[in-house]
């Protein structure tokens, strides 16, 4: 049987996961991870990738690769207190750009969640509402976010609002859709049981639908923040004055190649961190799910 698909085997003589506190649970899962070959394979994987980058660009100078910024150049630039192209860990500008992008994503994500989750919940809960509203929603959704750029620029007087709007739009569609699916895929036995037990409509909503759909909602939120970054970067590349997308674009225009890579890696890191934050928030709110999954991993 294929290795990766076999059930993982864990130690059996430890304290049972259901007796652990939240922190204990995390430490337990961490210890399991460290004892497996996984961390070491991971290092090998990174080494292969970075090694190839180094060799291809700087040592072997392969045909297309030699134009690219090499890994040593990038790292030197990134760490230098006086960078040739103006951006490194030591310059204030670097953090300005990061902060700008994060601030924009935060606004977009916040608005999208605050508007998208109730909208999605309502779509899932009320069939009538869905029949009236969903067709228009589905009509607008396939339009790629970037196709909205010129329209957004025309609609919003300030470029800043246009950029946030674009990130918001992408996020909103993802959040609303996933929330709706979460409500719809909830086993109807739960709502039936609740009405048997005498719960009124709002009680059912608060105690059954909302917590029941929460796992789906959080998956949607993780997708949504990814999509938000995607749109933000695109919008920043096309217009705008600060931000990581802007950095990447202008670095290219001004032939500052190492900075492009710095921008890309920073984006990757920040994107991952924000996504992880959402996931952690979800884990915190849904302890029952974490425990259920931990039990299944045994």
């Amino acid at each position: 049987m294929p290795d990766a698909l076999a059930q993982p085997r864990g130690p059996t003589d430890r304290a049972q996961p259901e007796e652990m506190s939240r922190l204990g649970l995390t430490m337990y899962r961490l210890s399991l991870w460290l004892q497996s070959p996984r961390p070491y394979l991971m290092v090998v994987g990174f080494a292969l990738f970075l090694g190839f980058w180094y060799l291809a660009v700087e040592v072997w100078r392969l045909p297309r690769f030699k134009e690219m910024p090499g890994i040593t150049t990038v790292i030197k630039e990134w760490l230098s207190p006086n960078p040739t192209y103006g951006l490194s860990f030591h310059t204030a500008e670097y953090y300005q750009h990061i902060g700008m992008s994060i601030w924009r994503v935060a606004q977009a994500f916040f608005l999208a969640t605050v508007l998208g989750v109730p909208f999605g919940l309502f779509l899932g809960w009320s069939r009538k509402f869905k029949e009236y509203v969903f067709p228009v929603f589905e009509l607008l959704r396939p339009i790629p976010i970037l196709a909205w750029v010129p329209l957004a620029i025309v609609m919003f007087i300030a470029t800043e609002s246009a950029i946030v709007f674009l990130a918001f739009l992408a996020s909103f569609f993802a959040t609303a859709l996933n929330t709706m699916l979460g409500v719809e895929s909830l086993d109807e036995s739960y709502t039936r049981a609740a009405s048997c037990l005498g719960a009124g409509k709002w009680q059912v909503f608060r105690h059954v639908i909302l917590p029941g759909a929460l796992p789906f909602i959080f998956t949607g939120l993780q997708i949504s923040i990814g999509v938000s970054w995607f749109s933000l970067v695109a919008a920043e590349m096309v217009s705008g004055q600060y931000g990581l997308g802007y950095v990447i674009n202008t670095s290219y225009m001004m032939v500052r190649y190492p900075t492009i890579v710095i921008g890309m890696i920073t984006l990757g890191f920040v994107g991952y961190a924000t996504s992880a934050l959402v996931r952690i928030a979800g884990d915190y709110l849904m302890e029952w799910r974490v425990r259920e999954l931990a039990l299944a991993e045994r």
Partner: protein
Amino acid sequence: MDLRAPEPRGGPAVTRGRILIDDVVKIYDPEGAAVMAVDHCSLDIAAGEICMIVGPSGCGKTTLLNAIAGFHDITSGTILLDGEVLCSKDKPKAEPGPDRIVVFQNGALFPWKTNLDNVVFGPVMQGKLGRREAVDKGRAMMADAGLAGVELNYPGEVSSGMRRRVEIVRALMNDPKVLLLDEPYRALDSLTKSVMHEALLEIYYRNKVTIFFITHDLEEAIFLGHKVAIMTTRPCKPKKVLTVDIPHPRDYGVLTSKRFRELIEETNDAVHEEALKAFQAGEKEG
């Protein structure tokens, strides 16, 4: 065939929870495919009685249960609870309520609430008990059912047998007239099942409610029930109704008793016949 049941033995008589199913018909999609699920079914269940409904998968027994519970409507006929109309031709759908609580096939304990929170859900939502009193009562009932110690666990953390019991306690907290059980032990292994049967009986002896129990297991039916109704394949109606005259309180010793074996002999043919018909018709799991 006398549809009236004798008084259930083993405790004071119960006066509420009498269900009268009178000539009920249920047709799905009347203007389209017109599938008849229930065909002029009549059944009289006495107050406080355990009535077992046995039949092959997909025959329509769950439809009956759903009609009583208020999840589906009926096409014609009447269902009465203690003389009051639950649903009829003029009022095809009953209102779900805490007087008839369902225990679902795959379990419907809320996974995001602790066992205790699940158990006190009913009274707290209806405003019948304050949180404090509900918790006290809940703990007591759980202890009675052998569930002391798992109050603060989540349903996902305890065994499926325990989950069933928690669900039953959750229902009983509301002092219902009727408990509707839809093949609750179907997913359990037979060892756990036999223990669950005794547990259920014990809970029943303490809280007299009418029990409407759907199963496909004839032995389970005769072991638990006062009355066993064997249903035909779809569309369903009672093919044979049996009164089980083994006295309550019962224990697993009953399973090897002579009377038990006799009753199985009487009914086995009827059940097997319907099962064969269903098999040939290729019924999907209902």
